[in-house]
């Protein structure tokens, strides 16, 4: 039998103690290798190493890393046993409902709740008057109340809430609440928010910018602007992006329960339970230790469940008042009125290239519509700029951005936070430049990439970069050379790239490098199973699985022996939450460092038992043994029981914090990350020039995730990102009338692609093996969304020769552009539009040579442990090892506009031009 074969070669070792079956009380005599029977063999991981070294290489035991691993909580989901927000049913529960504002902007004169309160079955009616403490996800921009205190700021803003015995009574009570509003002039158009008005939507006191509705402004200039004055070619574009919603399938829901102990347990599908925890303490005015935040299963987040929400406060307030559990569940339209989706934005972008085919300047101006509240907007404003300064080496970067308040539901963080729209503009600009230079856009990109271990123009530290592999693999997979500019009219292919942070270097709530970003606790008791306590929120992306995999790999155990407890803040160490694509990177790193401590104890115990040196031992599949003579060693359980002698359960704690990095200029921390992901997609489309209908036929999607810990999940994330991005580029749009009424707060008219709109996606995983990532991994959850938008837009150009500048590209918009071009060319049919062609110029050869040279350079840098620093600016003739600002006195590094600039803005950026100079001089923003 195979079991016997397994035991062959196993020798009794000197000093080996008799081993008793766990739970037997130690009296039963040692039976041979019983524990190997008890622990299932793991199915084996993927051992082939991506190129390069990682600090966790020696920890690989071949257990699960790299194996297609089903999600550890999947069986709950497929059997219907997973409990999401609304599935938490506590005995004696009440139903909570929220009264929402019917006005865009109004002052509340008075609220009369007496009639509602007198309805039979209504137990509590609450308004904002008593709960005036502000909260918000970012400590610098707290501007939300549990319910409106003085003003309502958008349709759907919370006014009052009720708790009743059942839903129909609750709804009726809402109708009986009388609110006296003084309607104010709403601001709907984001451009108008730049002007001074009598009554700005918020008042930020001394931080307020004039009397405008500008919430946050950013100005940044880096690099040498000489070359921009006289560029060889330029591409200028003005973009309009519609706002989009996350469209997760589970509407928000929350259950609040004050337990007999006087403590609150809040059950909520949250991405960032810790911030809710803090906000609850602020609003309820109780210490944090009196609150347990329980994260239920989360039915999709994508950023839309990462703010602390007013309705969560309402549930807690109602439950405190009534002494009974209160459950609030949203209707789908409430989800849209809560929003926090991607910012509608106006982006102007000028891209310049020089004779050598180098990108000598990117000038961007972004005006983004934040809606009624700040949410993550402070960060979004930076991200719209800084996240397109890579992966290319650029000569200068100029960014002005402004986020404004309007009387619409608040925008916030959504998959690809702040980077998606401006990335789309950059990638289209590059295609346009290539068209003018008559070169191939993939070659152009390959010839302008930053190398591994380099620094971007804004000072971000790039470690691993798999961009080149992504581009090359996609080029090959999609048969680019045969297709680009060669497909028949109406049929096209396009390329797009992406760059995204893998975790944000600056934690929102505390000074970096003092507290860790993530902490993980492990506990192993007599049973041998490993319990992981972590606060990381699994929102469906599989973070529980990744952390279980990491621990199982280090300890050489099958994943079935690992259980993850990640739901209750009472038992989980703080994790900052599932945003910024930080969980795999930070949490798995913390888990590994906790597991290493357990591993060391097991090795020490083995050394004691076998009387060998600790250094000579390694952990393999369920066994700890000598590396040079694998027959010498003990099983996992034997080692464990030895280690537990005299002290009981093994526990350990591991933490992760980012290394110190980044520049010192204002805003330098925005966009800083311990690693960055890269991606390149090609999309093939068919466009019907007579109707403007675009159909995406196939997508080749290469993403550099460092190392695929779980390829099944990485592929799922890539395909899912494509789906979401395709929605934004083709159909999805939160449509407002001029007066600001939302036309489509439902899933019928808000068009999420169904299976019929979904093309075949070929996921290509590129592994660049990040030196600091857990086993080399980086993020794969958000970055894969970025390239799909430009890839499709560029493909539309390849198909019919028309560049869009407005998303989504609905047939009506595209047809208008087609019609315009047909008229201007005096054609008789759209079918006669010229099909774009490409004849390479001489520059193509130059670029090909440069790309080849850089490829060698990159390989050398990656493998050379003694590599020198490399600063952006080198291909423009700077010495690579010295920061360009130290070599070139014209090299700017500035975050405040000069007088000269204010008098004569470089880019007619609406965000800056229209705001009065007076406010800027005062420098009065946070």
């Amino acid at each position: 039998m195979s079991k016997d074969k397994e035991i062959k070669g196993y020798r009794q070792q000197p000093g080996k103690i008799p081993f008793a079956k766990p739970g037997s009380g130690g009296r039963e005599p040692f039976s041979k290798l019983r524990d190997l029977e008890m622990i299932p063999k793991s199915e084996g991981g993927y051992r082939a190493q991506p190129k390069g070294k990682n600090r966790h290489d020696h920890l690989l035991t071949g257990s699960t890393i790299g194996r297609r691993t089903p999600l550890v909580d999947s069986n709950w989901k497929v059997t219907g046993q997973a409990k999401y927000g609304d599935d938490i049913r506590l005995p004696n529960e009440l139903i909570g409902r929220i009264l929402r504002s019917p006005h865009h902007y109004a002052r509340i004169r008075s609220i009369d709740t007496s009639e509602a309160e007198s309805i039979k079955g209504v137990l509590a009616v609450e308004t904002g008057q008593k709960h005036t403490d502000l909260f918000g996800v970012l400590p610098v921009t707290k501007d939300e109340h549990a319910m409106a205190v003085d003003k309502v700021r958008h349709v759907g803003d919370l006014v009052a809430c009720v708790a009743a015995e059942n839903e129909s009574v609750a709804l009726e009570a809402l109708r009986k609440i009388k609110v006296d509003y003084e309607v104010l002039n709403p601001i709907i158009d984001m451009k108008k928010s730049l002007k001074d008005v009598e009554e700005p939507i918020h008042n930020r006191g001394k931080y307020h910018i004039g009397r405008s509705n500008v919430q946050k402004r950013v100005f940044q200039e880096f690099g040498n602007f000489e070359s921009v004055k006289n560029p060889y070619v330029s591409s200028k574009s003005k973009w309009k992006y519609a706002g989009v919603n996350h469209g997760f399938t589970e509407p928000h829901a929350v259950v609040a329960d004050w337990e007999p102990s006087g403590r609150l347990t809040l059950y909520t599908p949250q991405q960032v339970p810790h911030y809710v925890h803090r906000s609850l303490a602020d609003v309820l005015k109780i210490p944090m230790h009196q609150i347990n935040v329980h994260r239920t299963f989360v039915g999709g987040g994508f950023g839309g469940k990462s703010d602390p929400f007013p309705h969560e406060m309402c549930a807690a307030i109602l439950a405190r008042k009534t002494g009974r559990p209160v459950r609030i569940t949203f209707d789908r339209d409430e989800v849209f009125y809560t929003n926090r989706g991607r910012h509608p934005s106006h982006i102007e972008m000028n891209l310049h290239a020089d004779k050598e085919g180098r990108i000598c300047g990117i000038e961007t101006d972004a005006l983004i519509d934040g809606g009624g509240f700040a949410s993550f907007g402070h960060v979004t404003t930076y991200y719209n700029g800084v996240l397109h300064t890579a992966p290319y080496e650029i000569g200068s970067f100029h960014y002005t951005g402004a986020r404004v308040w309007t009387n619409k539901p608040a925008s916030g963080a959504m998959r690809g936070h702040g980077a998606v729209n401006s990335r789309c503009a950059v990638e289209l600009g590059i295609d346009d430049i290539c068209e003018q230079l008559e070169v191939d856009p993939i070659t152009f990109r390959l010839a302008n990439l930053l190398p591994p271990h380099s620094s971007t123009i804004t000072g971000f530290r790039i470690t691993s970069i798999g961009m080149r592999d992504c581009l090359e693999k996609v080029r090959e997979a999609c048969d680019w050379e045969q297709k680009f500019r060669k497909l028949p009219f109406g049929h096209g292919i396009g390329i797009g790239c992406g760059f995204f942070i893998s975790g944000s270097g600056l934690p929102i709530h505390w000074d970096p490098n003092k507290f860790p970003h993530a902490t993980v606790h492990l506990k192993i008791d007599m049973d041998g199973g490993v319990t992981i306590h972590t606060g990381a929120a699994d929102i469906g992306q599989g973070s529980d699985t990744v952390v279980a995999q990491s621990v199982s790999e280090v300890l050489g155990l099958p994943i079935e022996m690992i259980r993850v407890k990640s739901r209750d803040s009472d038992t989980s160490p703080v994790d900052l939450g599932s945003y910024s694509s930080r969980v795999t990177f930070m949490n798995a790193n913390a888990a590994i460092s906790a597991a290493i401590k357990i591993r060391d104890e097991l090795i020490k115990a083995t050394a004691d038992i076998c009387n060998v040196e600790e250094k000579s031992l390694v952990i393999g599949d369920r066994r700890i043994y000598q590396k040079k003579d694998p027959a010498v060693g003990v099983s996992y359980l034997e080692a464990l029981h030895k280690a537990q002698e005299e002290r009981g359960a093994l526990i350990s704690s591991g933490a992760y914090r980012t290394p110190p990095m980044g520049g010192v200029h204002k805003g330098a921390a925005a966009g800083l990350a311990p690693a960055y992901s890269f991606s390149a997609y090609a999309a093939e489309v068919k466009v019907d020039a007579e109707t403007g209908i675009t159909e995406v036929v196939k997508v080749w999607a290469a993403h550099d995730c460092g190392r695929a810990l779980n390829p099944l999940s990485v592929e799922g994330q890539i395909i899912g990102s494509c789906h979401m991005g395709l929605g934004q580029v083709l159909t999805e749009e939160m449509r407002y009338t001029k007066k600001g009424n939302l036309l489509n707060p439902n899933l019928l008219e808000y068009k999420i692609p169904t299976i019929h709109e979904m093309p075949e996606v070929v996921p290509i995983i590129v592994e660049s093996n990040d030196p600091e990532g857990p086993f080399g991994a980086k993020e794969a959850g958000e970055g894969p969304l970025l390239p799909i938008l430009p890839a499709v837009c560029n493909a539309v150009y390849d198909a019919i020769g028309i560049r869009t500048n407005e998303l989504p590209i609905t047939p009506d918009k595209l047809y208008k552009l087609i019609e315009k071009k047909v008229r201007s060319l005096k054609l008789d049919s759209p079918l006669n539009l010229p099909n774009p062609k490409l004849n390479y110029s001489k520059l193509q050869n130059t670029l090909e040579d440069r790309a080849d040279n850089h490829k060698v350079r990159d390989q050398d840098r990656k493998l050379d442990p003694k590599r020198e620093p490399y600063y952006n600016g080198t291909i423009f003739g700077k010495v690579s090892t010295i920061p360009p600002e130290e070599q070139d006195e014209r090299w700017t590094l500035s975050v405040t506009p000069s007088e000269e600039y204010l008098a004569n803005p470089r880019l007619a950026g609406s965000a800056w031009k229209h705001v009065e100079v007076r406010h800027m001089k005062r420098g009065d923003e946070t």
Partner: protein
Amino acid sequence: MSNSPHVPMIPTGQKSSWDAVINNRIFDDLNIESNAILLDVLRDSVGMLGVKRGCDLGTCGCCTVLIDGVPKLSCLTLAAETKGKQITTVEGLANGSHLHPIQKTFTECGGSQCGFCTPGFLVVISALLNENSNPNDREIKDAIEGNLCRCTGYQQIVDSVHAAAEILNSNQSVKDNTCAQVDPHPGIDRTTE
């Protein structure tokens, strides 16, 4: 005003007794209002919380259940219409702790990420596989066109259907998958395989 008698705004229908066979269990002691929606009855009265409410408007497919074997959106179905019928929800797909092939392959092929849409997909696909044990891509797409999934981009769902069809056609019984995670001796099981 506040002392006026209580008049409900939503007319509540008359209560009458209702019965159905839900996941092979007979429910015959329920009293429901004549305008009760099946989704509400299943979730709130029967306690089948596996049936999900994504929109309440017939646009997401999360609430799909089988009524006499045919997929129907329970948020658009009056409970009264289903009186005496056979209703299957996701909870009724597994045979004891032996998962339905599609449940097993959803796990293995990544058909479920956040899992909120999963119950809807599973019942629709189980009905499809019941009729057609070897559906092609087109047939699969047509079957699940009414179900939205925001996480997976559908591709791994289609993969799961093909994998499940393969299991069905090979006539293997699906191994006790719910237990693999909790079985104290799965190792022994595997070594004797």
